[in-house]
């Protein structure tokens, strides 16, 4: 799913930036040519305003993709053993209570009818009510998504500048002590599983010294600064987890560009180091770095269920897992669609930034 909307594909941090640039211009912008009838006008539009064309094409694709995701989720839940009525009642299920719940929710009707009904509601922006808690899905998700974004925003706010900064520092002192320290520490951080990092931080800062807030539960009516203090430890954990990936990509991408012939030419021309990096090297290094940042941002929003559980943080991940456990279809569907939309949006944003930064990509061959 992740690879489909992103023509560049997941980027290997150790691979050179060039490969992803090539695949971006080849696959990403050449795709619409498959439609032969629309070829003429579409091609002109593409050349005049490639950015707008890309956005339109991606939006169309994402709608199709979201549709496919909803079918997959629906089918997946149907395929899981047990339906909502049996899993929700668990050991206290009696045949009569199960039948009553099925009748109440309409689970006794055919699969296709139920899917079409759900789709009809969703298209009108109505995600229905949770089967289990009977609360409005939109309202519940609003809160949980807000929490997830709050956490992801602050983790990104710290980790992205830090990663790019450390990456540049590593390039500056390449193969010398600072570079080696940065490398070893970041490799160590990425090698430890996130729950372990989380437990370590809890043990040191919450149990041993009692300086950090734990559990990180946030709730309605909690002040902004209380919330900030509550998320300190989970943010620190997430920063450690995502830092190394982005830092190493920055280092690899800049090093790769810095060793190319045209940078050498610039140096020989006598340009200042800042001018070389900012004007000549950076635009070519941006694409792979932005792609990695986008993947990590997506992870921060949709993939942090383990961190949520460890720190008792009420985010989207835990919400979806709870819903899958009892086959609460409306909630799972809504969560799945939001997660997919985030992946699509972030990857699209990454490609756009890469194109804006690098004029060569605006004009496909």
């Amino acid at each position, binding site marked *: 799913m992740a690879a489909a909307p992103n023509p560049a594909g997941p980027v290997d941090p150790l691979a050179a930036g060039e490969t992803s640039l090539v695949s971006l211009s080849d696959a990403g912008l050449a795709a619409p040519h498959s439609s032969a009838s629309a070829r003429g006008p579409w091609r002109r539009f593409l050349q005049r305003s490639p950015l707008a064309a890309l956005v339109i094409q991606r939006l169309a694709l994402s709608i199709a993709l979201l549709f496919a995701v909803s079918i997959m989720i629906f089918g997946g839940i149907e395929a*899981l*053993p*047990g339906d909502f009525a049996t899993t*929700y*009642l*668990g*050991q*206290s*299920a*009696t*045949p*009569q*209570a199960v039948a*009553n*719940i099925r009748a*109440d929710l309409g689970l006794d009707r055919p699969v296709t009818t139920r899917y079409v009904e759900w789709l009809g509601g969703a298209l009108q922006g109505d995600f229905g009510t*949770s089967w*289990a*808690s*009977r*609360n409005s899905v939109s309202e*519940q998700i609003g*809160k*949980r998504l807000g929490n997830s974004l709050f956490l992801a925003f602050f983790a990104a706010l710290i980790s992205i500048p830090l990663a790019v900064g450390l990456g540049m520092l590593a390039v500056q002192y390449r193969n010398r002590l600072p570079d080696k320290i940065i490398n070893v520490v970041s490799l160590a951080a990425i090698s430890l599983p996130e729950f372990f990092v989380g*437990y370590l931080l*809890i*043990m040191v800062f*919450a*149990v041993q010294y*009692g300086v950090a807030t*734990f*559990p990180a*539960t946030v*709730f*309605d*009516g909690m002040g902004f600064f209380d919330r900030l203090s509550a998320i300190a430890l989970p943010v620190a954990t997430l920063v450690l987890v995502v830092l190394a990936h982005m830092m190493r990509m920055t280092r690899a991408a800049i090093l790769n560009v810095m060793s190319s012939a045209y940078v050498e030419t610039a140096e020989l021309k006598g340009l200042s180091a800042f001018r070389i990096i900012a004007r000549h090297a950076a635009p070519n290094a941006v694409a792979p770095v932005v792609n990695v940042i986008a993947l990590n941002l997506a992870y921060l929003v949709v993939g942090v269920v383990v961190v949520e*559980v*460890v*720190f*008792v943080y*009420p985010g989207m991940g*835990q*919400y979806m897992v*709870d*819903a899958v*456990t*009892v086959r*609460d279809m409306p*909630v799972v569907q809504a969560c799945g669609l939001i997660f997919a939309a985030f992946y699509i949006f972030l990857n699209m944003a990454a490609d756009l930034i890469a194109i804006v930064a690098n004029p060569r990509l605006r004009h496909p061959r």
Partner: protein
Amino acid sequence: MNDWTRHLKQQVTLGAMNRREFMGRAAAAGIAAASAGTLFSTAAEAQEPKRGGHLKLGLEGGSATDSKDPAKFLSQVMFCIGRCWGDMLVESHPTTGAAVPSLAESWEPSADASTWTFKIRKGVKFHDGKEMTVQDVVKTLQRHTDAKSESGALGVVKSIKEIKADGDNVVLTLTEGNADLPLLLTDYHLVIQPNGGYDDPFASIGTGPYKLLTFEPGVRATLERNKDDWRSDRGYVDSIEIINMNDATARVAALSSGQVHFINRVDPKTVNLLKRAPTVEILSTSGRGHYVFIMHCDKAPFDNNDLRMALKYAMDRETMVQKILGGYGKVGNDFPINSTYALFPEGIEQRVYDPDKAAFHYKKSGHSGSVLLRTSDVAFPGAVDAAVLYQESCKKAGIAIDIKREPGDGYWSNVWNVQPFSTSYWGGRPTQDQMYSTAYLSTADWNDTRFRRPDFDKLLLQARAELDEAKRKDMYRTMAMMVRDEGGLILPMFNDFVNASSKKVKGYVHDIGNDMSNGYVATRVWLDA
């Protein structure tokens, strides 16, 4: 004063024992009730319940799917919240398990135990200020038993045929005699609600000692004391905060850093480490839940009772309790009842690990080759390890066990109650009758050992309607012996409920009814500054 009473006194002073426990143990030691009472009050002067404070609980088991409707209560968190804001008609005694009055003042069965008259307490107010009436009780029971019921208690109360108000009384007519009816009404789903909850099942308005203030499913709930509570012997703290913590390590960290006062489900593997923390107390209570190895009595090779006996004698129960439960449990005796049930048949000989007897029965059974055991860690915590331990103890008796590890997802639909020999878990039931009816009656859907004996079924129905407790206990003994010596159940252990609290928490009542002081923990404890 002998050493034992001195020990009891000390326990009281330390706050390790409350009045009920003290009286119980003092009585067991042969001290007359009156003098025991005096002993307690002198020892417990410093231990009078204190009112006030904010109690924080970190509980496992809540989920974003939790519903505020008592009929749909499922998780440990909702169990605990429901006990705070609501009352049932009947409660069970924490140490004897007998039915004691709550919203019903008293009750009277007909001679055949098929019609029951409950006298409803007067002058009890709901949180919204309205007085609780007989009609509210009738409606509540109707909502849980009517044709459209989606209640988790339906299995317990489905034998109620007719619910009638009669002056200050509610008269229940059953489809058959049932001497356990009062105990069945202690079920935590059966919270008495205004108009039975027909108007608004999610209102969380009841007669309990606390009012629900805020509730975010799977996250957090807050409650404040109900100043008009009809009982004075509960509801000591001013406010309660329940935080949903599904990670065992997070709960332990929160307790040891003083962020919460009480946590549930302490992992037996780490409980001995937690014990060392100076501010923490481990609260372990005997429970009805049991870890089992189940054989289908009607499928080869398990249709041979000698093979079943061989496999029972080959179980090393003591080792299981030590290794799998970390010592926080009791050995089982191959029938699903232990001393936490009312009318427990005492004195049945404990079955112990005996490789010689196992080998004898194994030879007699004529079986050869290995026996296939299916397991998965979802069956119970440590089930795969337990299977390996069992394989070892069987080997010493010359019985070869093959272990097949099954996927966790779908274990309860594809393996349990389907395959002839597997590991499983039972959560226990409020009464012996319920336990046997759910899993040992010939016609039961969940008869997971395929134990089918008409004489057993007949005895079960007879015992259900028997009001004479001595006769009834005798019948339960006969039934226990049938299951123990001829059934397909190998029951190595009953697990304890292991909770932990800060030492500031006083007055915890070890309740044999269920986990977390039968859900009443927040209403029974107080905070010592």
